[in-house]
């Protein structure tokens, strides 16, 4: 995972509410066995609409997406995060995110910033003409017009994002604690601690 601290640049003023992961990346793109190349399928149906922001040269290569409530709802496909990364997006700003998507985004070094709808409305306006800056260290979103909003982020997630930490490796370092839980569970919940291998 790439460390992330500062994201600055133009933003796609997308603004839509309840953007599901089928919209971010449709199912027929999920047949891949790698993480790369999904940017070509990102927002495929939206891109068929005339004047969509993703094909507007004004925003080409923008690292930020601004969206409405409940971004990333629906399917758990991490391909949605991979597709965003592959199209160069490293930050999404919205009033709220689905739980699964925000986890997937975090694990791929994409910053999800939740701001109130009023801030989103203002950012949608700024994004049409000017860049936006997000600073993870100070937890702020700013524009060159003196707009400034603070955002909340889980301290652990912040630490991992700033340092590009591999969560699997970190948890494996706790192997002893996991082993201790397993021996305890073998006695207390034996029916969960094993399965009968009768199939397959």
């Amino acid at each position, binding site marked *: 995972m790439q460390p992330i601290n500062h994201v600055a640049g133009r933003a796609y003023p997308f603004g839509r509410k309840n953007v599901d992961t089928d919209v971010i990346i449709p199912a027929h793109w999920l047949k891949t066995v*790698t993480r790369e190349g999904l940017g070509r399928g990102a927002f495929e149906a939206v891109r068929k609409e005339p004047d969509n922001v993703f094909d507007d040269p004004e925003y080409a290569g923008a690292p930020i997406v601004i969206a409405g409530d409940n971004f990333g709802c629906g399917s758990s496909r991490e391909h949605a995060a991979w597709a965003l990364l592959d199209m160069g997006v490293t930050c999404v700003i919205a009033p709220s995110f689905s739980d699964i998507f925000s986890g*997937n985004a975090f694990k791929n070094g994409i910053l999800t910033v939740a701001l109130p709808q009023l801030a989103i409305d203002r950012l949608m306006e700024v994004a049409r003409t000017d860049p936006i800056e997000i600073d993870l260290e100070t937890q702020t979103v700013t524009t060159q017009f003196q707009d400034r909003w603070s955002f909340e982020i889980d301290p652990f997630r912040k630490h991992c994002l700033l340092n590009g930490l591999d969560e699997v490796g970190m*948890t494996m370092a706790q192997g002893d604690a996991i082993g201790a839980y397993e021996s305890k569970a073998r006695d207390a919940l034996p029916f969960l601690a094993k399965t009968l291998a009768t199939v397959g």
Partner: protein
Amino acid sequence: MTNGPRTLYQKIWDAHVVDTRDDGTSLIYIDRHLVHEVTSPQAFEGLRMAGRSVRRPDLTLAVPDHNLPTTPRKDAAGNPIPIADLESANQLATLRRNAPQFGIRYIDATDREQGIVHVVGPEQGFSLPGATIVCGDSHTASHGGLGALAFGIGTSEVEHVLATQTLLLKQSKTMEVRVEGQLGPGVTPKDVVLHIIGVTGMGGGTGHVIEYRGNVFEEMSIEGRLTVCNMAIEGGARSGLIAPDEKTFAYLKGRPYAPTGEDWDKAVAWWKSLATDPGATFDKTVVIRAEDIQPTVTWGTSPEDTSAIGGTVPAPEDFADASKRDAVKVSLDYMGLTPGTKLTDVEVQNVFIGSCTNSRIEDIRAAAAVLKGRKKADHVKWAIVVPGSGLVKEQAEAEGLDKIIVEAGLEWREPGCSACLAMNPDKVPAGERCASTSNRNFTGRQGPGSRTHLMSPAMAAAAAVTGRLTDVRELVG
């Protein structure tokens, strides 16, 4: 550890904490991990690149479902028929290769136990009450119908669970959805859950785990409970669960992976202790009267766009929220619907009965009961019934349900995810409508340009017969 009276969710959570950090994040032990072909290749690749192994292959079960065509899998000589789509074939072959390499049990496409991962787990007794169950699929919430804490995860989390058998999680808020009263005739578990999502909205459960409570769920079959919990995610909740009871125990006893002997007795004793304590509180409560629930269909492109079948297509102006008005405008345009149209006047060209929401034996029985002695309408071009597993298929055939279905002019298929999502050959053509028992009516979900109306198996069967959205109570009194 929660102090004082605890909810079902909190009890399961407390029993699985390996470690808690100062910031409240906990390392949670995972009891059961289901794996399918779509969300696992990159996870196995990640393990391979880091030289890591699977910590508990014995708690992991792999089965292909999303990519498989639902046409016959073996030729006359009993040999597997190759899959035409090369990308699908490659993804399926990747799972078939990865599972033995990492020592994971694997059910193959041609095995009689194969099926949709969320049908297979409960059916095999692999999914158990009180267990933490994950799968790289958001409909993992289904297993909550047994009283498990089950939720969908992304591929990085799949890799994390394979390597460590744990996940780093923050405790969710709790939400109670209580449905009490008497359901009317023709009102099924699918109608109940569609109605709930219509009330709570698709973001209403975000950050929460839902516990479904009240006499309606107590009286519901296990299949019905799996249907309700399956769609918890459509209301934004990562998990939905229902307290295990005698019905749950009777359903699980004797299933291949279920505990036996002394372990079974211990298990039942513990499962009985899991029900939410009197006096435990929820962060949010929604109460619904069973009598208010009608046979329900969706008209838009969000699962919250529900209406009783007797209703009409709404107008954008009917909604107070400005962004919802815009969304409704876009979705009615996509769906090709005019406000004010009676839902029962909407014609369908396709019918899909199946998916992890509604492909269990009771669902097939409910569809067959409507189809018996009837024929599908001529203008319904494509109507398929797809059992959730090979065992459901065998059971349905033993009951003669396949014959009723075929005689009514519908196709009887091999198990898989099928037309729920456009990943295999079963797709709805652009601009055409489908009466579907699946879980998502998103734009393009059943194929680019497809128009989905979600409903119960009985309602979908009724739509096949009349060729339009139909109140099943008019066919079956």
